[in-house]
């Protein structure tokens, strides 16, 4: 794990801060003077995981780079809710071009900064899962291949939420979306398709790849900070639950992200040059069912009749992640 656990201060390193911790042991988000790269008044839905993830990540990137950061944003919820022309929620230099070209634009910004001799200015490319795993995939792969000096962050909410919850290459099996309805013999999204972008990124053998979620702030901050210590192409994949698209209660956003990690469905790990270097152990193991049943996109697995075959299939996926990333059997309490 990237973070060093803090012992016995009631909430250790699990909560955002704690009055009993020394300043340096507190998270960036606990600082009243944090950047708030994405400020209030944005039009994200109630309980938006992406708004939270973007602020967590960019505030950490700003802190790591002495505030010298430019963000390049793909089309998607994050762009639309933050910047309905002529208003903007960004408190960071920010560019938006097209849905599919954010990695290429980020490459260009990095090249321009290099040409100007401003190597102190760092570039973050960001987008949702649609822009990243589908529409901008070619541009992203090129950015990885060239090892351009960009940190690309994907905020994965597992479908095209902005346009009305259509399936993307990151939509998990069995999930209901507008284009994978819960009808027929295999309701919801099919098994066996889709793309695991963290593993594809690793296959490019870029310096740094990590996954994170909005449920573990300290881990996310530590990974962004670590990513900024490398030069070259870096990729962080952040799970950000979407109350609208997932059919979950707005207050459960973090809880659902936590259950995704604790069930093993979303493995949290990091890799350098194509090799996994560490993974965050599961602290309180839960069955995938705990995660699934809070979301209406999986409601068809539980009513009118329970679909054990599909639930078991999803459990097998989680179990495979647990084996592959060694998520259990590490020394437990963290």
């Amino acid at each position: 794990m990237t973070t060093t656990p803090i012992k016995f201060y009631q909430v250790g390193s699990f909560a955002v801060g704690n009055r009993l911790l020394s300043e340096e042991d507190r998270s960036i988000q606990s600082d009243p003077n944090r950047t708030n790269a994405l400020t209030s008044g944005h039009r994200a839905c109630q309980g938006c995981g992406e708004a939270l993830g973007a602020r967590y990540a960019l505030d950490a990137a700003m802190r790591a780079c002495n505030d010298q950061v430019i963000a390049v944003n793909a089309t998607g919820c994050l762009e639309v809710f933050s910047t309905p022309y002529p208003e903007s929620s960004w408190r960071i230099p920010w560019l938006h071009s097209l849905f599919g070209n954010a990695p290429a634009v980020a490459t260009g910004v990095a090249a321009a900064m290099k040409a100007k001799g401003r190597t102190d200015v760092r570039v973050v490319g960001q987008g949702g899962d649609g822009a990243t795993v589908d529409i901008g995939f070619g541009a992203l792969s090129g950015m990885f291949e060239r090892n351009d000096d960009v940190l690309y962050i994907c905020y994965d909410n597992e479908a095209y939420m902005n346009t009305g919850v259509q399936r993307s290459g990151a939509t998990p099996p069995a999930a209901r979306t507008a284009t994978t309805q819960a009808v027929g013999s295999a309701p919801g999204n099919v098994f066996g398709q889709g793309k695991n972008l963290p593993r594809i990124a690793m296959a490019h053998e870029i310096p740094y790849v990590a996954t994170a979620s909005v449920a573990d702030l300290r881990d996310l901050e530590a990974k962004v900070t670590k990513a900024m210590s490398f030069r070259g192409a870096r990729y962080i994949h952040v799970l950000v639950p979407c109350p609208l698209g997932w059919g979950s209660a707005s207050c459960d956003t973090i809880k659902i992200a936590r259950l995704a990690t604790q069930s093993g469905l979303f493995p949290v790990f990091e890799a350098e040059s194509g090799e996994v270097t560490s993974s965050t152990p599961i602290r309180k193991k839960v069955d995938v069912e705990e995660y699934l049943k809070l979301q209406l996109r999986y409601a068809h697995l539980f009513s009118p009749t329970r679909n054990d075959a599909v639930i078991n299939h999803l459990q097998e996926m989680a179990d495979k992640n647990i084996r592959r990333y060694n998520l259990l059997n590490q020394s437990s309490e963290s």
Partner: protein
Amino acid sequence: MEKPFAITLSVESSLANHTGSWRVEKPEYVHRMPPCNNACPAGENIQNWLYIAEDGSYENAWHALIQENPFPAIMGRVCYHPCQDVCNRSFLDEAVGINSVERFLGDHAIEKGWKIPAPDVESGFKVLIIGAGPAGLSAAYHLRRLGHDVTVRDATHAPGGMMRYGIPKYRLPREILDAEINRIKEMGIRFEMNTRVDDVHVAMDEGFDAVFLAIGAQLSKRAYIPASEAARIMDAIKVLHDVEEGNQPLLGRKVVVYGGGNTAMDVARTAKRLGAEEAVIVYRRTRDKAPANDLEITEALEEGILVKWLSTVNHVGQHELRIEKMELDEKGFPQPTGEFETLEADSLILALGQEVDFSLLGNSADLDVVDGTMTVDATMMTSHPGIFAGGDMVPADRTVTTGVGHGKKAARNIDAWLRKSTYENTKNTDLVTYEQLNSWYYTDAPHVVRERLEASRRAKDFSEVVKGLDESNALYEARRCMSCGNCFECDNCFGVCPDNAIIKLGPGKGFEINLDYCKGCGICVSECPSSSIVMVADK
């Protein structure tokens, strides 16, 4: 400003867009009732003083504690800590060692010589307290803090009541008892010891504006037991009293104690310390039905005290007694079986409970007594205006902590009565359950176990059995508190708000919600570890 074609908004930050207007519910910071506070017979705000102690501010924590209870060092030894029985942390790992932290604060205060603040103004009212036990001393303390002139009268020669004459030294060392009582004396309270009050009304007419009666329950209950003339039968209260006064009672080598309450345990353990080779407790029901606190039973058993459960004493001879085996009927009452057993015994000590000795009150016919205890109303006042009563002489649990609680309650009501107002104590009934906490956030941290003297060593003398915590483990223990229902500034709400709508006010000041931007998603409520934010309808 000139706006671009087809654009109605100005070029500016989204801060102009008050998304709070979307909201139908809003979060609100609240103070809820932690189970420990709810269970405390002395009405301590435990969560609060633990919170203060957590950053090492022991003196402030002690001052907060003594707002409700002047005896933390005593409590930390003799209280049966009902707070810990209901601590929500026990569902996570183990209850917080509240009692051990209380003792640490109490001992620390004695060591540092911290003083009780003087009252702001003298009220001019005079109050007489009859009985210098836990209830009387607590009332004296609280009345003095409220500015009243207080006199305490007691028939014994040293104050403390059952804390001195009932609880043995190995549970409550006398230097601790004296230190906490002296601190109360120094507040300017008059103690008139060796002064028996024979008539409450005469005493009151000496110029007191109110009286608080707390004479306890000192009369041992008797049971008719056939006995030969040479049998030695004593009562437990007298034995404990004699030991305290330095008069060693003649108990013999083998001692049998009859009864299953805390006094029975205390007297059996005392007998062992006085040199009895064998101390046997005879009790008519089973361990789980015994009124003694389980901790006391455990400690007694560890010290080699034998217990004959389901037995009654049938006949007492000079060196032996006959007991009869009992069995519980369907209703849980013991019934004789006709099976007998003989025990060697040089003496029998009766610990069958105590009654209030109303003869002490002399002319008190106008005070209502029902079933052997004095009737008081919700303000602790007896049927006679201005005369209040509490402690063991009114119906309640007979523990030190309950007595201390009575003293406080009576003091506050006496104060109100004297000032011709009423004491409003609206108890917060919004109790926090474990399920309402977000336990994910609490680190696993097992309870620090207080060291106890080796059982074989401790049964030989009166040294204190349970040891205290040192500063480092007291701090650790305090920090195990989950702060149920009250903010402890973990910054979670501040961090997890997707709309940056939480304002952090700085250390000790907590947080505020910026309703201009709060969309009412409720993440702060569900991610609050201590359940101290709730959603309410937004009108």
